[in-house]
């Protein structure tokens, strides 16, 4: 008996680059990113959209990569945490999380960063309540969220050119 399922060609645009891989039609975007493209910054915490560790941006919108079939992503611009550092310079959210103690074990961190990046694109000066709402789909078990919220707020201030 064979469990083989016919392979399929999957094309994705990730972090500004086009990739073509041979995959399984059952592959989620998360599996393609991690297992076929070697972009392991995006994590799997639950596999069914409840923890947010696999958050990536699809055309700027924060989505759970485990809930998106790789085959559905044709034409979408996917951004992962690996795509945020430009010319050696970290995104303000990334730097702020380091500076304010907003990352401990680091497992939820890439997902939190992507949710925060999406937030700041549409709401550059969010209140703490708006920040908490934006990351409500990202479960963190280590920090209690306190320093994450402060960091995202500080990143917003940095972006605005105000002192943090």
């Amino acid at each position: 008996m064979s469990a083989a399922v016919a392979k399929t060609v999957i094309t994705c645009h990730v972090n500004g680059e086009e990739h073509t891989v041979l995959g399984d039609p059952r592959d989620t975007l998360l599996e393609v990113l991690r297992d076929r493209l070697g972009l392991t910054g995006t994590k799997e915490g639950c596999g069914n959209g409840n923890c947010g560790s696999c958050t990536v941006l699809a055309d700027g919108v924060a989505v759970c990569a485990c809930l998106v079939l790789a085959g559905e992503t044709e034409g979408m611009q996917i951004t992962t945490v690996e795509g945020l550092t430009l010319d050696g310079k970290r995104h303000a959210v990334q730097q702020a999380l380091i500076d304010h103690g907003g990352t401990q074990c680091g497992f939820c961190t890439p997902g939190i960063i992507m949710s925060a990046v999406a937030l700041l694109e549409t709401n550059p000066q969010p209140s703490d309540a708006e920040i908490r709402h934006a990351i409500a789909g990202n479960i963190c078990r280590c920090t209690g969220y306190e320093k994450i919220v402060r960091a995202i707020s500080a990143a917003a201030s940095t972006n605005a050119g105000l002192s943090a």
Partner: protein
Amino acid sequence: MNDTGQIDWGKRDSVVGKRLPRVDGGERVEGTAIYPADMSLPGMLHAKTLRSPHAHAKIVSVDTSKAAALAGVKAIVTAADFHDVPAGATIPMGEAGYDMWMVARINIAKDKVFWVGQPVAYVAATDVHIAETALGLIDVVYEPLPAVMTIDEAMQPTAPVIHDNVITTGLDQAPHGPSNVCSRALIERGDGLHEIAIKNAAATGVMDATIDTAHQGYIEPQAAVAQVDSNGMATVWVATQGQHTTELMISRMLDRPQSRVKVVPVEIGGGFGGKISIHGEAACVLLSELTGRAVKLVLTREEVFQGGSGPPAAARHRIEVAADSDGTLTAITGVYRQDCGGLPGLPASLMMQASAALYQCPHLHLEGYDVVTNKPRTEAYRGPGGIQAYFAMEQAMDALCQRLDIDPLAFRKKNATVTGATMPIGTPMPPIGLTTILDAVGAHGCWTDPLGESEAAHLKRGRGLALGYWRGTSMTSACHISISGDGRPMVTMGSADISGTRTTMAQVAAEQFELSIDDVLVVMGDTKSVGYSDGAAGSRLARTMAAAVVEASDKAMAELRRRAGRLLQAEPETLIYRHGVFEAPPENSGVTISLAEIMQATLTDGAIVETGVSTKLPLGVEVGCHVADVEVDTETGQVTVLRYTAFQDVGRALNPTAVEGQIEGSVVQGLGWALTEGFDYGDDGRLRNASMLDYRMPTALDVPPVEAVIIETPVPDVPYGLRGVGEVPIVPVGGCIANAVARAIGARVASMPMTPERVLQAVKGAA
């Protein structure tokens, strides 16, 4: 260090005590930190676990032939392929050792299964989908047995006995047969007069509490990669709290010499006590040995919850406390029962002692039992047993305060233990700052600010207070420090980093060498490159590893000083050292030499590699007091936490940001268990909420800002006066929220989590 080379601990503080950012923050925010699930080796196979669908059953037969015939399946192992670990086998870990027979059964069931999800077989295949398909082709014939799911059921005289060899120890009269009760522990003080004290008391407080199983909730499921090479050396990359104890467990489980097992700790996505035991690593080694290929095992979230890991213990605790009319405690009594899960052995003594440790009281009678049930074997979670016991104890104390109409803070001050007072086990309390904490609480806005009015009549507010204590442990920590060719120290730690220890140890080393933190490199060593250390657990690591780093630093500095003396042609003890430079005294030549210059000049004379070991360092016991304001919606039972303040004596904060992070994170874990987290088992033994949707952990919207207030009462005879930090901040949370809710609605919720349904029942009861 002063000029003669003597160390003045904590006097200079140019690095220690500072809010420095994590040294490993960059890889976390850039997504380049490597966890085991991220690893990929050439030819690597993927492993999957076949797990028991029954809570209690005999394994009659296991037929793997159809699965083995599936294309892509390379190896399958069952209990028959594992070395037989006898009952009573242990590995050294801490004061009591760690039950190795239990570890073996957690990893593979033999003859019987004791919980839904217990592993029965492991498959390695060329991809994950094939491995999963293969699981469905393994034929296991079970003979189901009656399952016992709760402590109350398990303790019935007519309950089915889960383990034939469990004969309750610690009873006055030895029982004539096996039962589900493993042991009885007794802590007594006051000549057995506690019952009279209760009878004569001006008031008593009683809490008969039920605490549901919860879960540590680490976001990263267990994962490991194993590879046995052509020389028979097994390397295991794993997210573990202790690389050396993992090596011991793998070695014992496979009867493989320790020198042929190398455990490499990689990044770990949360442990909290749940990643001390191995969960599949030994099976991966076996599969790799059989196939000649690397094998990777990653648990799914459902597996983690549905029996693939060890949650903390459910409990049933009945506490009764008594006092005189002026609030002086006269008796603390309790019957404590904690749930071992499917394998025996979780003695209640440590948890009971902790529950009463902070009170001075002439009469104690604490009786504790550990009970087996057909649920996953209990494992540790931040001060194991503490939050459960304190949910009961602090509510009983608070009920007593209400009866006597005494302010709960004043009551704690009146009865607080102090340095030197006698602890429940009879030894004197080591130095603590409980009264300092209580004074700080009283002076803080969390206690003095008005509670404020709710916006509607059906919303009720209340303020609660609770204490917390955890003893922690010391055990063994080791490191070595080598000096690079550019004069910079590199610290190799023997233990894993689960709380930011790489950063704090870099701070300690930088302080010792008078360098900037950027000049120090700290790495976690694998088990073949660094000396034995116990794991990161028991709030022990920063304190004991700091002692090891201080020792290794001293030795390295002494050798550098000797070499400097030779090169400067001066007596080493006359040299003045400051910030990486040795200077000959002015009357000699005043010539200087840097650490880099010393190393370049003496590179071929021999490396400078110095070890440091700490064993049985004096304890730094952990003490905390928490205050919370809640608002209860008496129409829905929903509890909103408005404000939360956690006071904790940390001895000395090596890095206040890191310390606050531990406290804030623990509090939110505690809020989860207090209000929404509880395992819901069906009568068939299956966990009904085995997903992160239905096992409801707090999100950023569920919790208020948490304020951590750090108190520092240094511990004598311990470097930098450090206490353990990481466990006690979860201990008071259940009791604190429960007390706030009780004062809001005028009735007590006796079950944790205090879900809306349970709160509503209490509201209705009070109406």
